C-alpha cells in the first residue's frame, strides 16, 4: 500500500467528475484528496487524485478511467520526481495576547495572514501535506475555528508532461497494451 498521485486530463463536460469518481468507487477505493481545475489546454480540465492502494490495483483503476469517453490522459506520478503542493486556509483564534506567538509560527512556515479580525486571523499556508500538518500542530493550541485544504496538486519535474509523450495528440495512447516497457509519465501503465 502506497499513496498514489494520479493525474487525469479530461474534457471539461458535465458529469465527467462523477464518472471518474465512480470508477474509483466501483473498485472500493477511498479518494484521499481531489483537486480539479483548468489545464494548459483550453477545454481540458486537470484532476489530481491521491489514493492509497497497491500499484496493481491503482493501475487497474487507471485503465478503467480510460473507459470514460472524455478522459484524454491518465498518469500515475507516484514513482516520478514531482513537485506537489497543497494550500490550506486556517481560521485561528487570536486573542490580542496570542497574536505575537501566531505571527512567529506564520513566519517560520512562510505562511501568510490574509485576514485579521478582533478575535481571529485567517492564515494561508502552502506546501506539502506534511508541512501543512506540522503548521496545524503548531497553531492548534491557539484554537482552530475553521480549516479548509485544497488537496494535492502535482507536476513532474523536468520537461515531461502528460500530454507531450511521443508526439501523441490524443491518438495512440488510449490503447497502449499494459506490461510493455517501463512505466513513465503519460503512458497508460
Amino acid at each position, binding site marked *: 500500500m502506497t499513496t498514489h498521485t494520479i493525474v487525469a486530463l479530461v474534457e471539461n463536460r458535465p*458529469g465527467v467528475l462523477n464518472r471518474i469518481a465512480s470508477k474509483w468507487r466501483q473498485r472500493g477505493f477511498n479518494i484521499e484528496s481531489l483537486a480539479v481545475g483548468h489545464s494548459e489546454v483550453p477545454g481540458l480540465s486537470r484532476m489530481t487524485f491521491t489514493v492509497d492502494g497497491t500499484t496493481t490495483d491503482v493501475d487497474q483503476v487507471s485503465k*478503467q478511467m480510460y473507459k470514460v469517453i472524455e478522459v*484524454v490522459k491518465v498518469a500515475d506520478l507516484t514513482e516520478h520526481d514531482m513537485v506537489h503542493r497543497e494550500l490550506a486556509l486556517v481560521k485561528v483564534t487570536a486573542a490580542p495576547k496570542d497574536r505575537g506567538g501566531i505571527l512567529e509560527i506564520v513566519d517560520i512556515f512562510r505562511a501568510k495572514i490574509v485576514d485579521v479580525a478582533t478575535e481571529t486571523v485567517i492564515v494561508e499556508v502552502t506546501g506539502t501535506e506534511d508541512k501543512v500538518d506540522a503548521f496545524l500542530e503548531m497553531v492548534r493550541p491557539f484554537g482552530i475555528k475553521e480549516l479548509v485544504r485544497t488537496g494535492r496538486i502535482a507536476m513532474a519535474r523536468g520537461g515531461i508532461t502528460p500530454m507531450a509523450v511521443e508526439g501523441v495528440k490524443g491518438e495512440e495512447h488510449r*490503447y497502449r*497494451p*499494459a506490461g510493455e516497457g517501463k512505466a513513465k509519465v503519460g503512458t497508460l501503465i
Partner: protein
Amino acid sequence: MKLTGAQIVMECLAREGVEFIFGYPGGANLPLYDTLPQYPKIRHISVRHEQAAAHAADAYSRVTGKAGVCWATSGPGATNLVTGIANAWMDSVPLVCVTGSVVSWLIGRDGFQEADITGITLPITKQNYLVLDVDDLAQTMREAFHVATTGRPGPVLIDIPRDIQQQETEFTYPETVDIPSYKPVAKGHSGQIQKAAQLIKEAERPLILAGHGVIISQAYDELKELAERAHIPVICTLLGLGGFPGSHELFMGMPGMHGMYWNNMAIGDADLVIGIGMRFDDRVTGRLKDFASNAKIVHIDIDPAEIGKNVKTAVPIVGDVKAVLQELNPLVEPARHEEWMAHIQKIREEHPSIAIPNVKKILPQYVIQQVYEQSGKDAYFVTGVGQHQMWAAQYFWQDNPASFITSGGLGTMGFEVPAAIGAQFARPKNLVWSIAGDGGFQMTLQELATIAEYELPIKFAIINNNFLGMVRQWQHMYYEDNLQSVKMLQPDFVRLAEAFGIAGMRVSEKEDVIPAIEKAIRHPGAVVIDFEVEQHEDLFPAMPPGAALAETVDQPKFEEAREPKKVGTR
C-alpha cells in the same frame, strides 16, 4: 431544413440504418411518437414492459451486429430499462437507448415521473447524455451510435427533455464524428503479435479460449484459420459459442463452472492459453491462482482494461480480434499436436460429461438436445438463465455463427422471452427457439402479447422442473438440501399461452418429446411447449463456487444407465 428535436432523432436513426425501435410511449416521449408516421421505414415495436424493449434490442443487435435501439418515457419508463441496459453493458452489446425526460425547467425539481436516469445508468453505460440544447441533438445522436458500436461495444443512453423534442432548429447531419478523447484502435501491436506467434510455435499443448469478441468482430474465418494452421483445440466461452463451428474436430465446447470436464482438465495441462476476445471471467477460470498454472497466456482483446485484470498475461495484444488475427495468422507456423489431441480425447472418453442417461423420465437435457437435433442448422436459440441455460450451452454444437443468444455476464432471468422477440425480428425467416426456464419465463411472460400482436412464430420450450432449478441445486449441494423459496406454484402454461392466442402444448411422457418439437416447428405461429421434466435433475459437470477448475465434478449420477455418446459428432 428546420426540424423539431423529435424529427432530428428520427432523421438520425434513419441515417444510421435503423430498422426497428423497441419501445413504450409515455408523457415525456410523446413528441417522438408523434413523428413516427413521417418515417414509415422505421418500424416501432410496442412491447409490454420497457425491460423487454432493452432485451429485444439487445438480442436484435447480437444477431445482426448492428446497434439495437430502444425507447422509453421518463421516470419509471427509463428505470424499467435499467436491467436491460446492465445486461447489454456486461455482454458488450451496442444499444442506443433514447429516453424522454421531463421538461427542462423541471429537471431536478422532482417533477412528475422524473428520474435522474443519466445518473442512474452512469456505471452501466459506455456513455450517456442529457441533451439540454436542441442544437446539440444531431451531434449527440451521431456520437451515440459511434461510441456504442466502435471499440468494445456497449450501451449508450440519450435523455431528451420533452421541450427539447418539440423545439425547432436548422438540421444539418454531422457526416463525421470526431471525439478527440475517444479513438479506439483496431490494429494490434506488431511486436506483440510476433511474440505471440513465437509462443505458438514453441507450444506443445496450446489451447484457444474464444469469447464474445470473436463474434462481435466477426472473426470466424480468422479463428478457424489459426486453429487449423497450428492445430489448436478451440474452447468457446458461453458467449463465444457459435464463434467456431460446432462440428469441427477442434471444437471442444465450453469451459468453466458447468463446462466440459475435459476442457477444465486440459486448461490445467496446457502450456499455452490464447484468450481471444474474452475476459477470463470467474465462471471460466475458477480459483484464479490455480488457473492454467502450467501455461503462458496470450490475451487478445480490444479493451485495454481487460488486460491483466484477472490473469497475468505473457503477451497482451490490444486490438480488434479480426484485425489482430489477420496479422497473426501468416506468422504462425503450421504444426500438428497429435499427442496433445490424443491426451484430451482420452479425458473425453473417460469423462463424457454430457452423455445423457437413457432413463424413462424426461430429462431436461434430453429435451434441449432434441430441440437442437430437430431444428436444423439455420435455427437461432435464445435462452434464459439457470440450469437450462447451461444445458443449452453444453449441447450447443451448432455451426451457425451468432445463433446462440444468452445473457452471460449479468445472468438476467427473463431474458428468454423478449430476447426471442429481438432475434425473430432480426431473422424473420429463420426458426427461433426460446429455451426457457419455468422461473424466468414468468418474469417476462407478458411479452407473449407482443409476440401475438406481431405474429412472431417463436417456439418456446419451457424446461419446467417446477423449481428454480439452479438455486435448488445450490441449496441441495452447498446448503445441506435446505430448499427455500425455490418450489413455486406454477400457472397452467398451456392455458396461459392460449389466453394470449398462442398455441400451447404439454409434454409429460418421454415418447412425446420429439413429436411435440416437430409439431411446434411445423406450426406457422408461436408455440409454447410446457415440458414437464424430471424435477431433481442436477447439472453436471459442476465446479463448486470458489474451487479450482481441477476440482470439477463430472456426472456422478445414473452412471449405469448411461449410453456413452460421442460428443460433437451428431
